C-alpha cells in the first residue's frame, strides 16, 4: 500500500471563504473535502493519510514561512506521492499549490500532481516543476479533475510507462525526450506526409514546436575602455596541454580558470584546444586565435584598455546544452565580479 498526502486551501478545507484566507497551515489525519473524492478515485492502491490545509492569503503573503511549516509537518510522515488542488481558475490557490508542490518535490523527491485551468497564473509559474493537469474553470469540474490526477498518480506508483504531456493531459514541463512511435511510422513517411499537408493547405503538426525566443539584452557600452578590466571567456576549449580540470571534449559540464597574469601570449605546446567540434590544427599552432591574449596585451600597452584580467575562463561548446552553458556562465560570472571585470570578450568557435 502506497501513501499520499493532499494539499488544499481554506475554502475546500471547509474552514471558510475569503474571510478565512489568512488561515495558517494545518495538517489533519485522514480525509478533508476533496480528499474524499481523491481517495475514492485512488482506490485500494494508494491511501491518502493526511490533508494539509492553508489559507490562500497566508501562503501568498508568508510564502517562506508557510512552506517551511508544511515541510516541517511532512518530515516525520511517510508518503510516496503528493497531490495539491485541484485549483481550477483560482489564481492564489494555483500559485499556492505550485509553491508547496515545488518545495515538496525538491525536498522529498516524490512526484507531485496538481490540476489547474489554463488561465490560472500558477500554470506558467510552476509547470516546469510539477505535473499540472489541464483542469476545469470551477469546482463544477472537481470530480473530473481529481480523476485525472488520481489516474496519473496510480500510473506512477505502479511504474507504468508514462506517455507524453499531451497524451497524459498535463501541461508540458519543458522537458523533451525521444520516444518510439507506436504504431511505428518512419520519418520518411512523416516528413512527406507533413509536406503534402502543408502544400495542400491542410492542418499539420510540427514535431518540434519553436518556443518563444530567449534573448539576452545587449549590455550598455563601457564608458572608458582605457580604465576597463577586460577578461576572456571562451567555449573554444583552450586548456593547458594536460587538461588539468578534465574538461570534456563535447557535451561539456566542466569549465576551467587559468592564470595568465605572467604571460604575454599563449604558447603552442603549453596550451591547446580539446574542442572536438572543429579542426584543431590552427588553434593548436597558435592558441591566441581563440584566446587573443597577444592582442589584448598590445592594447594594454597602448593604453586602449586598462588591463587584462588575471585569468581566462574556458569550456567546450560543442554538443553542450543551453542549460549546462547557462549554469557554467553563472558560475564564471561570480569570479568575474570578484575580479571587478568591466568587459568580457566571449570567444565562440
Amino acid at each position, binding site marked *: 500500500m502506497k501513501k499520499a498526502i493532499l494539499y488544499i486551501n481554506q475554502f475546500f478545507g471547509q474552514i471558510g471563504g475569503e474571510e478565512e484566507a489568512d488561515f495558517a497551515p494545518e495538517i489533519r489525519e485522514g480525509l478533508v473535502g476533496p480528499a474524499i473524492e481523491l481517495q475514492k478515485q485512488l482506490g485500494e492502491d494508494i491511501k491518502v493519510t493526511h490533508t494539509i490545509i492553508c489559507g490562500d492569503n497566508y501562503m501568498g503573503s508568508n510564502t517562506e514561512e508557510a512552506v517551511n511549516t508544511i515541510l516541517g509537518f511532512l518530515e516525520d510522515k511517510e508518503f510516496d506521492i503528493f497531490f495539491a488542488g485541484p485549483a481550477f481558475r483560482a489564481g492564489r490557490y494555483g500559485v499556492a499549490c505550485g509553491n508547496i508542490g515545488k518545495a515538496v518535490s525538491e525536498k522529498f523527491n516524490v512526484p507531485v500532481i496538481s490540476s489547474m485551468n489554463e488561465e490560472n497564473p500558477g500554470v506558467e509559474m510552476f509547470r516546469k516543476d510539477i505535473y499540472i493537469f489541464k483542469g476545469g474553470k470551477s469546482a463544477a469540474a472537481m470530480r473530473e479533475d481529481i480523476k485525472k490526477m488520481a489516474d496519473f498518480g496510480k500510473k506512477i506508483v505502479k511504474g507504468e510507462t508514462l506517455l507524453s*504531456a499531451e497524451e497524459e493531459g498535463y501541461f508540458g514541463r519543458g*522537458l523533451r525526450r525521444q520516444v518510439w512511435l507506436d504504431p511505428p511510422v*518512419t*520519418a520518411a513517411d512523416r*516528413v512527406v506526409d507533413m509536406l503534402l499537408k502543408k502544400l495542400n493547405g491542410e492542418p499539420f503538426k510540427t514535431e518540434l514546436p519553436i518556443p518563444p525566443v530567449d534573448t539576452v539584452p545587449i549590455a550598455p557600452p563601457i564608458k572608458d575602455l582605457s580604465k576597463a578590466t577586460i577578461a576572456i571567456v571562451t567555449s573554444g576549449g583552450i586548456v593547458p596541454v594536460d587538461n588539468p580540470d578534465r574538461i570534456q571534449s563535447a*557535451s561539456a559540464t566542466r569549465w576551467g580558470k587559468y592564470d595568465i597574469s605572467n604571460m604575454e601570449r599563449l604558447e603552442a605546446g603549453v596550451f591547446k584546444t580539446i574542442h572536438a*567540434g572543429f579542426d584543431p590544427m590552427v588553434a593548436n599552432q597558435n592558441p591566441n586565435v581563440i584566446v587573443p591574449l597577444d592582442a589584448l596585451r598590445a592594447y594594454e600597452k597602448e593604453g586602449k584598455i586598462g588591463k587584462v584580467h588575471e585569468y581566462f575562463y574556458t569550456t567546450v561548446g560543442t554538443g553542450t*546544452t543551453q*542549460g549546462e552553458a547557462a549554469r557554467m556562465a553563472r558560475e564564471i560570472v561570480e569570479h568575474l565580479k570578484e575580479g571587478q571585470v568591466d568587459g568580457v570578450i566571449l570567444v565562440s568557435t
Partner: protein
Amino acid sequence: MRLELGNFYVKDIVFGEETSYSNGILTINKEEALKVVMEDEHITDADLHIVKPGDRVRLVPVKEAIEPRVRVDGGPVFPGVTGDLMQAGNGRTHALKDCSVLVVGKHWGGFQDGLIDMSGEGAKYTYYSQLKNIVLVADTDEEFEKREQQKKNRALRWAGMRLAEYIGSCVKDLEPDELEVFELEPIVKRTKQENDLPSVVLVLQFQSQMEELGYNDLVYGWDTNRMLPTFMHPNEILDGAVISGSFMPSSSKWSTYDIQNFPVIRRLYKEHGKTLNFLGVIASNLNVALDQKERSALLVAQIAKSLGADGAIVAEEGYGNPDADFIACIVALEDAGIKTVGLTPECTGRDGRSQPLVTMDPKADAIVSTGDVSQLIELPPMETVIGELESLARDGFAGGWWGDEVLGPSVREDGSIIMENNSMFCGDQVVGWSTKTVKEF
C-alpha cells in the same frame, strides 16, 4: 535518367569456398575477401566476422556501413572514389539487400565512431541491428591520427568500400529477386499530369564541417566543404555518387549505406506523379563560417525557385552548429515562397530541458524530429565485443567519456556501459528510417 536496381535478398551469410550468392545464401571466401582488404598497405591487421540480428554481440568503434553492390555494365560502385569518374544513377546496379559491410576499428575509435548492439535493449537504437552484417575489424598504420579524437579513418573506410564491391561482384551476372526502376523525365519534359501536381525538391545538407580535406562527405569524390549547392538527380544519390564522411557524432551521421538507400528519396519516388512532382535533389553542405552558411542557403533557395519548386524537404546531417545552416536554409526557402518541412535530430541535454536546436526561427513551423542525441542510455554487458569496448570511454567518442562525477566512466569493469545516444551508430536515422520522435513530458 533511368536506374535499375536489381535486388538480391540475403537470408543468411556463411564463410565458404567460393564467394557466391544462391537461394538467399551469401557465401564469402574469407581469405580472398581479406586479400582485397589488404590491398592497401596501410591496413596492418584485418579479420572478418558475420553477425546477425539476435547475436549477443556488441560492435564498437563502428566507423562505416556500406551496402554490397556491383555495377552490372562495369565501373566502380562509387565513381570518383573507388574508381574512375563516371555517371551514377543510370543503367543497372545489383545490390545485396538486408545486409551491410560494417567497418570496425580493432582498437582505436574517435568522436565520429559509434556502437551497435545486435540484441537486447541496445538493439533498438540503431538500424543495423536488424541487418545481417559482414564485419571487417581492422587496424592501420595511420599513426598520425591514432591518438587523435578526429580521425579520417581513410584506410578503413576505403577497405570497407573495396570489400563491399568485392562481395557485390558475386551477383553481377545473376538474375535478381526483384528489379526496381527509378526514372524521372527531365524537368521541362514532364507530362501535364505531373506538372499539375505540386513540385517538390529534396535538400540534402551533407556533413562538411572540417576545413581539412579527408573528413567530409564526398560527391563524386569531391569534398563537400569545397562545394557550392548543386542540383542532382535522386538516382545519383541512390547509386553511389555520394559517400559518408568521418566527422560528426555518430547518431546524427548518414552512413554510406544510409545514403545508398535513402528512404525519403524512395518515398518521394512513390508519390511522384500521384500527389507530387519530384523535381530532384539539391545537394548542399554544412560549413562552419557564417558567410558559407548564408551563401549555401541563398543558392539552395535560388535553385529551388528557378526549378519551380512549390515545396521542399530539408534534411541536415548532424546537429549543433549545423542547426544554423538548417534553419537558415528553411528560412531562405520559406522567404522564396516555397513551403518547407525540416528533418533533423535534436539535442535537448541529458535532462531534456535545453533548447532543442542551436538556432530556431518561427518560419520553421514544420519539422519532423528523428531523435534526441543527448539522451542517456545504460546497457548491460554483452557476451562478445567485436572491436575494443574501452574505446567508447577512452577515445573521445561524442557520446562516451572517461569519467563523470555522477555517472562514472562510460565503460565499467563488468562490461556494462553508459553513454549518450550521440554514439549509437547512425542511430537517429535522419535519412528516414527513424520511427523515433521527440515529445514534451
